């Protein structure tokens, strides 16, 4: 009787421990639902915030101040879609170059701090980064509105609104 009980106990033990070890590896159910809470701009462009749309557009079309030939050709093709006059297109290209360097600098600086913080078991100030990022996008948008002709700005804004169809964003919501 005792041996039966012992065997049962061992069997239970062998079932329990692997389950616990496995649960540490697959720690988050978020890993199993990577497509959860995503807004598809093709179906619901009205749910993509303007600031997010501008950020993604600026990240996509901005290039460094000394782009390669391939980068130049790509950017020219991207900007041609807006239908801007030549002068407005040149103005836009300059603003994009400024945005590129500021955005890259913001991210690199934050990531360096975040890496150090992570190694120490500390948290970086992500909310502050999000605020700075959004301020940079907003100020770039304001600068473009001021620098482009009225028609050029109207064309650019309409283009970015249309580009929402090409965007998919996560609704910022804590997922476990």
């Amino acid at each position, binding site marked *: 009787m005792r041996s039966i*009980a012992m065997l049962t106990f061992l069997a239970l033990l062998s079932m*329990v421990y692997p389950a616990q070890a496995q649960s540490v590896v697959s720690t988050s159910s978020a*890993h199993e639902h990577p497509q959860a809470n995503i807004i598809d701009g*093709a179906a619901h462009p009205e749910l993509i915030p303007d600031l997010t749309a501008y950020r993604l557009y600026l990240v996509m079309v901005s290039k460094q101040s000394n782009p390669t030939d*391939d980068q130049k050709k790509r950017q020219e093709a991207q900007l041609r879609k807006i239908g801007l006059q030549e002068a407005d297109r040149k103005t836009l290209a300059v603003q994009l170059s400024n945005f590129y360097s500021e955005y890259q600098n913001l991210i690199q600086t934050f*990531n360096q701090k975040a890496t150090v913080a992570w190694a120490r078991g500390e948290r970086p100030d992500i909310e502050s980064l999000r605020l700075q990022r959004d301020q940079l996008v907003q100020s770039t948008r304001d600068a473009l509105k001021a620098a482009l002709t009225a028609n050029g700005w109207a064309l650019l804004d309409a283009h970015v609104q249309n580009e929402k169809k*090409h*965007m998919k964003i996560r609704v910022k919501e804590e997922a476990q």
Partner: protein
Amino acid sequence: MKSSLWWLAAFILMVSASAGRATAQQCITFSDDLAAYTDESTDGTYIYTSVAIDGSEEMIINPTCAPYLPQYVHTPWAYNQLSIPGGAIVGGWESGTPVCPDCYLSFTNDQSIAANPGVNVDFEWQVEAICSGGGGFFGTDGFVGIAIAVTTFHIVTVNADGTGTFKQACPGTTRASCGAQNLLGRQPTIWAEEYQLRVTIGGSGPICSPVGIVQYFNGPPAPFPCT
């Protein structure tokens, strides 16, 4: 009696182990505002596509789990493949630099392919943000149909201000998929070719974007067929 004690011990162990598992399942909590954006463009000869993933993320670890967690890193991945049915295929997966789990992710995969007007190019894309410890925590994908559209116009009126009014004049049985019926162009020329980028996302109708206009007098191989 002893047997009952064994069963009791086993039951207690199971209950405590289950409680431990519940705690472990809450070891990591994610929060992010990641986004995906795709772009298609053309210079009339090449089609350019880009797939970007961009956003902030947080990986919050329950302190009681810390001893179990290795040094995780997060990597942005973007898939950008262009293919011409029965023809060339370019692109694939590319990844950005692995960064810390609280770091900002921003990565773009650029590709291009040569395509004649009217030829359909399939653009398949996907993005993933992957944690080295547990797999993908953000991902989405899509398919876009792309083509360079050409519309041929012939001049009908020379205007007083020096411009010319052109009317759509597709040669033979060809049909324009993007162009308007009329075009206001410069003088003096006879023909005008309007290049546009035609993009189809999902089941929606095509979106046409301007690329450029070429105006010219007669001469082979003009006038070009409409596409």
